[in-house]
Structure formats: structure tokens, C-alpha cells
């Protein structure tokens, strides 16, 4: 019986070739899309779930309520680790100091500097030996206990091979950290898997950080509760049968015990599960990206919709084909086939088609996977074949077979045998027609939803790229420097040499660019008041050439100058307004006091510029120079170039760098590129929408093409009669297009409000955003109609051009 089903299924697939091809193509595309989406979800959801103690590990996070706003921090004050261990003896704690953009210099046998200099953007964790109880790591040489001593480091196998050629040669050798701290390699471990936000690569002992905290400017902060940085993180490993809530409930007492009363009232600590770190956008993580659960759900939804669309195609095409197959069904019934037997046969056919499609889908996914990095945050290559993906594919094959096979099987097996044999059944005599209309409407709603979403995402991204940031971001080169005093001392000479290059217009030193992902804030007092202002100031540390280098516009006063003997500050427009100044001029001459510093006079007010990404509002900002010229906070060199082709100058600048800072690796980036990096996630999302919108259009066009083909056959006689009665070709084409145009308009009426609602919610992520204009909807509906006409057109014209004599003979 089964063999017979398969034989027949194969022959039917062959016999109704076009039909099968449309079905298989549509399904294969959809299955491939679903498979790729599954792999993405599988990968994203697996982040840091593999640690043996994953469900018992929590990060200590901090929430501050300021000015009615909640602010979330992943870092905690330096003394927190010891205090937590004291107050929660049943819980194990560990702490990291995470260093980004560090330079590693390989030392030779005699501990002399070699030419091997590497900038390690991420992966440096100053750690305590017990961190391996929290995070799984396989040691291949040495053991975690080496991290009890200062000056010791464990590195990954890949770094060992990169720095020293092999694991064996690496042990016992030394590296120089940021040209200041010598570290001896005493342990080597296997590289962590890719699905972690804790990509341990270089793990110096935490003791090393403690004895060198001045390198990062934290020498005064080590014992204080006033400062926290996301670089310093504390993790808890709670005992089994203890819940996070039990610990959290005691955190209030903890905060009151250690923080100053005014800070304690607005500070909240809690345990944040390790398993959630990858998904919580409030805190950020040490990895390459945070993926919100919402964006994973969006992806899941898109996958489900695409699959549904393909199933809809299947149902549409199969029920349309039913008319052609009615004779076969009739005969089978007459000679004894029962309904259930026929259903089994038809579902087998569907199953085979789906199976065949999934083989093609596997191939398509294999081709598509390397391109995944352009549309998602996943930069590594995913494995197509794994137990999970097989299980997924198997379930999808089953679900799809049932979803798309059941209805046509039900309809066909219910045909009255005699009518079926005599071909008296046509697609409009059973309920299929209105159902198919509904399905086409649904399909087009999905694809228009995606089209509208895509247009909105693309226009928002282009708005962002071209937005006025309040400063000039073009042709500006940023050089990352080290923060040691020797380096800083050489800045003046470096600047003088740079300015001799004709293409260099201006050079300044600062902590960061006007727009950066830095979020340095401080409490402050204004105008000799004893109380701090209720809101924090955003801090920019910069020298006197900063305004000119970035083209900041002064609204009042002046920028501080090189000749100033005292420290002065410049504020932005928002700060001036928040301080209650009626106009920028009024702020000039007033004073402010940052933390425990002196009262500093305001000498200028600059026009607002965007401090961070356009997702955030402009913050009240203070720009100031550090007291000492040689400051660790001014390690970035900003070079404004005159040329439109900065590539040429880059070589010269690198040469100069190497003569001034021979011990430092040269690391340069263009400001406009680093600003674009803020929006990588959104860029990828908009590309993702684009890809799926195109897929959705292809799938719905395939379905439409299939339907119109059957409609053309069905209407052969009608077209013949109409032509005999004098209808023109265009009348006939209109006859075909009219119905679909109406269906698409209905679909649009459904899709447009939903799309508006969803995308409006998405735009709320941005403070600076486009308004959703009517033209976006106009483009969406026009494209849909044009694509539908193009799809329908060929078949319609062919039907219209057919000779009425032959058309009428078919009856």
C-alpha cells in the first residue's frame, strides 16, 4: 500500500510538473529560511548555557534611580566583592577587571621588547583563581591557582600559538601589558566556544590589577563605594536550593550598610542570571553583542510567517489542481478506495514534496550560511548539521506536511465519485474558492507587512547616516593611544610633527570623540550651591583644539585656550537650559563643581551635538581639560584632515606614530565609520527585513502564478465566449487582474495598520527618528500591485490571445 502511494506520488509530481516546481521552489525557500532562522535562534539561545554551574551563576548588577529615571549598570564598586563575601558567607563570589583595547607586546628570552605588538580589543579578564568554578574552562597547562600571585597570566591556546608559536613554547615566557605591566605565562587553556560572552583569552591575576590600578586611573577608587565601572564586575555562585530572590531580599540591608546615605537611597543591587546576560540590553555584556529576546521573537515570527506563506501556497495550488485530478480520485473511489485511504495517499504526496523541498532547502541554507554575518550579529560560521537542526527539520517536515496536506486531502477525498469521474467538479463548486481568496489575502498581508517594515527600517537608517550630529564627522582620523605618562608626555612633539603634514588641518587630544559609546557621568554642583544638581553631567575630557577639530559651534563665550592658567569648562546648550539659563550668554561666568574638584568657571556654551547614538537624547554635557596636561584621560589623538582621500596620508601618520611611539601598536579608525558602528544592529536588522521581504514576495508571487495558471485553464471557455462576443485582449487581461488587484488592496488594508503599529514601536528605540509618511505605504502597495500584475500578466495575455475556436473545443 505504502509503496503504491509512493509510486503514485512520484508520478503525480512528475505529471503536474509546473505545479510541483512552484510548490517545491516555494517550500524550499521557506524551509531554508526557517532552517537558517532556527540556526540563528539555536546559536543565540545557547550563549553561556554550557557552563556546568550556569543556572547558579549570577552577575551582581546595579540600578540607580536618578531624576525619576532608572539607570542600569553591570559594574559595581571595587570594595563590593569583599563586602559581599563577608555578608553572604554561604555564597561564593568572584570578580573581574575587564580591559578593552589593551596592547600586548611579546617579550623575548631576555625579557626584551620584540616587534610583536597586538591590540587585543576584547578577551582580557583580570581574574581570581576561583572564576573557573563559575565558568567552564579546560586547562591544558598550569592551573587556576597561579592567579593567586601578581604578575601571572593564563592565556588561551590560540593566543599562545599567536604570540609564541605553540603551547609548549609559551609556558614560562613573558608578555608586556600596555607597555607597563610584565606578565609571565603560567597557564594555558583551550579557547572558549563561540557561544559565550566571556571569551577568556588573556587572564592575568586580579592581584596584578590591584597592584597596578593606577594604570587605569583607579588608584583612588579601589577602596571607595562612590565609583563603579562596567570594567569591574562581580559574580555570585549561589548554593543549590538557594534562590536569587533569597539573596536579593537582603541586598537592601547590604546597600544601606556600605553606601553613603544619599547614594544608598537611590542604589539597588540584585542578582542577574548568567543565562540572561546575553539577552538583556539594559546591562550590556563582555561579548560582541546583546540580542534582545524581542528581536529573537521577531525573527521567530518572521520564520513562522514565511513557512505559513509557503503552506498557503501549497494549499492554494493543490486545491486548484484538484479539478484536474478529480477523475483519478473518482475512479479510485469507484473501485473501492475509502476516504481515509485517499487521504493517506494525498498526504503521502505532500510529504514527498515537502521531503524533496527540504533536501533543496538544506542545500540553499548551506549556500546562505556564510552570508549570515551580513544580516545578523553572528560573525562565526554556524554548523548546518547538528542534532538540533535535524530534529527541527524533521518536525517542520511533519508540521508542514500536515498543515499543507490536510486540507487539500480533505477536499479531494470528499469528492462525489460520479461527479468527479465526469469532471463535473470545478474549483468553484466546492468551498475552496473563497478559502483561497482568504489565503491569498493573508499571504499578501504578510509580504506587504514585511515590505512596509523594510522601507521604514531603510529610511530610518539612511536618516541616521545623514543626520546632523552637531559636529563634523568627515575625514577625521582617531588614533587610540596608551594612557601611561611617558606616552602622554610625547603628545606635544607628536602634534607638532603631525601638523607639518600638509593634509592635516587640526590635531587634538581627548578622552573620546563627541559621539562615542562612552557614558562617563558625574554628579556636580552649580553656581556655588552646596547641593548637587538632581541630574548628572556627561563628561568630555578634551584639550583646547577639540572644538576646532570636530567643528563644534559656539553659541556664547569662547572655548578655553592653551594659555589658560586655570581650569575652565565649556557646557552644551542642553546643560545651559537644564540649569535654567534663559539664554546661553547667561551661563557664561557661572561656576560648577564636579565631584570633589574645585569650582570651575563656565567660559563657553556650544551648540548641542549628539553624545551617543541617535537612540539616546542629547545629554547635559561638560567639556573640560584635565588639570595636568599629562593626563591618562586624554590618550586619544583626533586628526582632522583636509583631503577627501585620507588613505594617502594614513601611511605618513603611521610612520610618525612609529617614530614617536615605537613600543605601541598603531590603531586608527575613521570617525564616520565608528559612528556607523553604533547602528550595526539596526543596519543588520534592516538588511534582515530586506532579505525576508524579498523572500516573502517571491513566495507569494509563486503562489499567485500558480493560481493564475489554473484560473486561465478554468476560464478557457469563458474567455472563448467573451472573445466571440467581441472582447478585446485588454478586456480579458483586466478580467484576470481585477480580482487579484482587489485582493491585494484588501491585504494592504489589513497589513498597513499592523505595520504602522509595529514599526512605530521599533522607532521608539530612537530619540531621533523619521515620521512614517504616507509615501511609504504608497510605495508598498504600488510594488505589490506591480509585482502581482507582472506575475499575472503573462498568463493572462496568453489566455487572452488564445484562438477562441480551440478554447471552445475544450468543452
Amino acid at each position, binding site marked *: *500500500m505504502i509503496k*503504491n502511494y509512493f*509510486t*503514485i506520488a512520484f*508520478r*503525480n509530481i512528475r*505529471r503536474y510538473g509546473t505545479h510541483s516546481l512552484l510548490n517545491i521552489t516555494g517550500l524550499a525557500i521557506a524551509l531554508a529560511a526557517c532552517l537558517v532562522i532556527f540556526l540563528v535562534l539555536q546559536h543565540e539561545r545557547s550563549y553561556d548555557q554550557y557552563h556546568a554551574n550556569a543556572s547558579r551563576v549570577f552577575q551582581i548588577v546595579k540600578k540607580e534611580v536618578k531624576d525619576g529615571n532608572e539607570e542600569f549598570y553591570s559594574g559595581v564598586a571595587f570594595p563590593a566583592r569583599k563586602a559581599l563575601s563577608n555578608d553572604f558567607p554561604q555564597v561564593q563570589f568572584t570578580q573581574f577587571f575587564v580591559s578593552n583595547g589593551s596592547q600586548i607586546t611579546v617579550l623575548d628570552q631576555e625579557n626584551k621588547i620584540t616587534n610583536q605588538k597586538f591590540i587585543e580589543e576584547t578577551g582580557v579578564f583580570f581574574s581570581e583563581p576561583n572564576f573557573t568554578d563559575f565558568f567552564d574552562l579546560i586547562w591544558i597547562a598550569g592551573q587556576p591557582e597561579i592567579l593567586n600571585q601578581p604578575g601571572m597570566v593564563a592565556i588561551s591556546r590560540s593566543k599562545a600559538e599567536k604570540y609564541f608559536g605553540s603551547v609548549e613554547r609559551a609556558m614560562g615566557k613573558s608578555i608586556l601589558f600596555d607597555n607597563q605591566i610584565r606578565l609571565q605565562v603560567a597557564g594555558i587553556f583551550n579557547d572558549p566556544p563561540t557561544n559565550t560572552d566571556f571569551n577568556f583569552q588573556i587572564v592575568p591575576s586580579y592581584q596584578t590589577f590591584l597592584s597596578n590600578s593606577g594604570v587605569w586611573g583607579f588608584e583612588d577608587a579601589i577602596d571607595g563605594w562612590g565609583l563603579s565601572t562596567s570594567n569591574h564586575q562581580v559574580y555570585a555562585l549561589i548554593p543549590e536550593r538557594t534562590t536569587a530572590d533569597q539573596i536579593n531580599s537582603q541586598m537592601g540591608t547590604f546597600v544601606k550598610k556600605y553606601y553613603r546615605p544619599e547614594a544608598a537611597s537611590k542604589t539597588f543591587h540584585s542578582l542577574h542570571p548568567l543565562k540572561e546576560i546575553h539577552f538583556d540590553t539594559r546591562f550590556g555584556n563582555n561579548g560582541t553583542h546583546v540580542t534582545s529576546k524581542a528581536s529573537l521573537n521577531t525573527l521567530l515570527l518572521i520564520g513562522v510567517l514565511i513557512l505559513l506563506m509557503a503552506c498557503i501556497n501549497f494549499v492554494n495550488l493543490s486545491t486548484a489542481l484538484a479539478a484536474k485530478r478529480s*477523475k*483519478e480520485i*473518482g*475512479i*479510485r*473511489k*469507484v*473501485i*473501492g*478506495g*475509502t*476516504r481515509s*485511504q485517499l487521504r493517506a495517499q494525498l498526504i503521502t504526496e505532500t510529504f514527498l514534496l515537502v521531503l524533496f523541498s527540504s533536501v533543496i532547502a538544506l542545500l540553499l541554507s548551506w549556500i546562505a550560511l556564510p552570508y549570515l554575518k551580513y544580516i545578523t550579529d553572528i560573525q562565526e560560521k554556524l554548523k548546518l548539521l547538528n542534532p538540533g537542526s535535524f530534529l527541527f527539520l524533521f518536525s517542520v517536515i511533519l508540521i508542514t506536511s500536515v498543515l499543507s496536506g490536510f486540507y487539500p486531502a480533505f477536499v479531494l477525498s470528499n469528492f*462525489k*465519485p*460520479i461527479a468527479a*469521474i465526469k469532471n463535473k467538479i470545478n474549483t468553484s463548486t466546492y468551498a475552496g474558492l473563497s478559502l483561497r481568496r482568504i489565503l491569498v489575502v493573508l499571504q499578501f498581508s504578510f509580504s506587504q507587512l514585511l515590505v512596509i517594515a523594510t522601507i521604514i527600517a531603510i529610511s530610518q537608517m539612511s536618516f541616521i547616516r545623514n543626520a546632523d550630529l552637531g559636529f563634523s564627522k568627515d575625514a577625521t582620523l582617531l588614533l587610540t593611544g596608551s594612557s601611561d605618562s611617558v606616552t602622554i608626555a610625547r603628545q606635544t612633539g607628536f602634534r607638532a610633527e603631525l601638523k607639518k603634514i600638509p593634509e592635516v588641518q587640526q590635531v587634538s587630544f581627548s578622552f573620546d570623540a563627541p559621539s562615542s559609546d562612552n557614558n562617563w557621568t558625574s554628579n556636580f554642583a552649580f553656581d556655588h550651591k552646596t547641593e548637587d544638581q538632581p541630574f548628572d553631567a556627561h563628561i568630555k575630557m578634551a584639550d583646547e583644539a577639540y572644538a576646532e577639530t570636530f567643528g563644534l559651534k559656539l553659541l556664547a563665550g569662547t572655548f578655553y585656550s592653551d594659555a589658560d592658567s586655570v581650569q575652565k569648562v565649556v557646557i552644551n546648550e542642553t546643560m545651559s537650559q537644564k540649569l535654567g539659563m534663559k539664554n546661553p550668554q547667561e551661563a557664561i561666568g557661572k561656576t560648577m563643581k564636579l565631584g570633589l574638584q574645585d569650582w570651575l568657571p563656565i567660559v563657553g556654551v556650544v551648540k548641542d551635538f549628539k553624545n551617543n547614538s541617535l537612540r539616546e537624547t542629547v545629554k547635559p554635557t561638560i567639556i573640560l581639560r584635565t588639570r595636568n596636561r599629562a593626563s591618562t584621560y586624554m590618550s586619544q589623538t583626533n586628526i582632522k584632515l583636509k583631503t577627501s582621500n585620507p588613505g594617502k596620508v594614513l601611511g605618513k601618520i603611521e610612520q610618525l606614530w612609529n617614530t614617536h611611539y615605537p613600543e605601541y601598536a598603531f590603531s586608527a579608525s575613521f570617525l564616520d565609520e565608528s559612528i556607523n558602528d553604533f547602528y550595526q544592529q539596526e543596519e543588520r536588522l534592516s538588511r534582515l527585513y530586506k532579505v525576508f521581504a524579498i523572500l516573502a514576495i517571491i513566495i507569494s508571487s509563486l503562489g499567485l502564478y500558480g493560481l493564475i495558471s489554473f484560473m486561465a485553464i478554468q476560464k478557457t471557455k469563458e474567455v472563448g465566449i467573451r472573445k466571440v462576443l467581441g472582447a478585446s485582449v485588454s478586456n480579458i487581461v483586466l478580467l484576470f487582474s481585477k480580482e487579484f488587484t482587489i485582493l491585494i488592496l484588501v491585504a494592504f488594508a489589513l497589513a498597513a495598520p499592523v505595520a504602522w503599529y509595529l514599526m512605530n514601536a521599533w522607532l521608539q528605540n530612537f530619540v531621533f527618528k523619521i515620521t512614517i509618511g504616507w509615501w511609504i505605504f504608497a510605495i508598498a502597495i504600488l510594488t505589490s500591485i506591480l509585482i502581482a500584475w507582472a506575475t499575472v500578466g503573462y498568463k493572462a495575455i496568453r489566455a487572452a490571445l488564445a484562438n477562441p475556436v480551440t478554447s471552445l473545443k475544450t468543452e
Partner: protein
Amino acid sequence: MIKISQLEKIYRTEEVETVALNKLSLEVKEGEFVAIMGPSGCGKSTLLNILGLLDDPDAGSFVFNGIEVAGFNERKRADLRKRNIGFVFQSFNLIDELTVYENVELPLIYTGVKPAERKKIVEDVLDKMVIMHRRNHYPQQLSGGQQQRVAVARAVVNNPKLILADEPTGNLDSSNGNEVMQLLTDLNEQGTTIIMVTHSEHDARYSHRIIRMLDGQTVMENIMV
């Protein structure tokens, strides 16, 4: 074998009501060869469909092999049908996607005969119908006569008690037509009951009894000598 009485079948559309069978009564004994004749629209096809359990009557009684089947649901009808009744149609109604062998095998599959046994039965029947040499051909590759021989083979493969033939020679030339009629006669002589709808007086003469219908009723019966 068949006893129907006061059988009614009415086709209704929104505006028109057509009486296809009007209180028709009829009896067919086991081993009979009956021909049903009458003009188009007289109800003979409807009668054949009801006799074949493809359709159910609106009123009246239909006793098949001593069982009242008028109220049977589709599943029961299909079950009774596949064990007892074979069909031969004017337009052969072979499944184009199946070979000669597979077409003949199909009823056995539906009745659940084991594969080894199926092979023997099908080959036997194909031999008897002298179509064995065409077993792997598809219907389109055969002449009309050959197709109808396959159809007859398929109708008898389950060894049914009753064969219903709906103008079996209607699409055939006279020599192929005679061949098919001879096949049916042979089957009848081996004990199969045959009821045949036909327009052809020539074909009707192969039967034992001719029932003539008009407007959904029998109007005359001729016993052939």
C-alpha cells in the same frame, strides 16, 4: 440478488427539481445478464449509480444480497462495493498515471490482498484478457479496445458477484465492441451477474432481459430467448 422497490431520486438545484427515478421497482436474480435501455435523461445512469452504491436514493428500499443498503453511509457502501461490485465505463476510466498492471492491481490493494497473492491474481486476469504483453504500458499507449479490456480486467479482478457496465462499447468500433461484449458474456456464463446500460440494440441482444426506461420508470421488459 438485487431487489429494489419504490426507489426515488430527485435532483434539486435552487430553481429546478428533476425527478431522476420515480418510484422504480426492479429485481435482478443472481447469474442474470440485464440490459437497461432508454433515451438520454430517462434515469438509467442514476439507477446504475445507485445499484453500484455510488449514490444513495432519496426514498425506497434497496436490498443487496439480502441486506437493506438504502441507508448505508459512505464507508459501509465503499466496503460493500469493493468486495462485490465491478464497474466498466464507456470512457474506460483508467488512471493515466498507472500502468496496465497497476490499474488492475488497485482494487486488490484497496481490499487488502497480500502482495504475493496480488501478483498471481493480476497476472491470471491479464492472461485471461489477453493483455499480459501490455502489462507495463500506460493507458495512453493502448488502443480503445485494449483499454476497455484492461477496464474489464480491473472490474473482475476482485471476483465480484455483480458487474455494472455503463455503455461499455460506446467509445469502441464494432469489432472491438463485439470483443468486449463477448468478454462480458463469458463472465456471465461463469456466474457473474451483469447489469449493463446501453443505447445499442445490438449489444442489448447479448443479455437475457432488456429493461426499457422512460422518465425515471421502467416501461417495458423484453425477455430474450
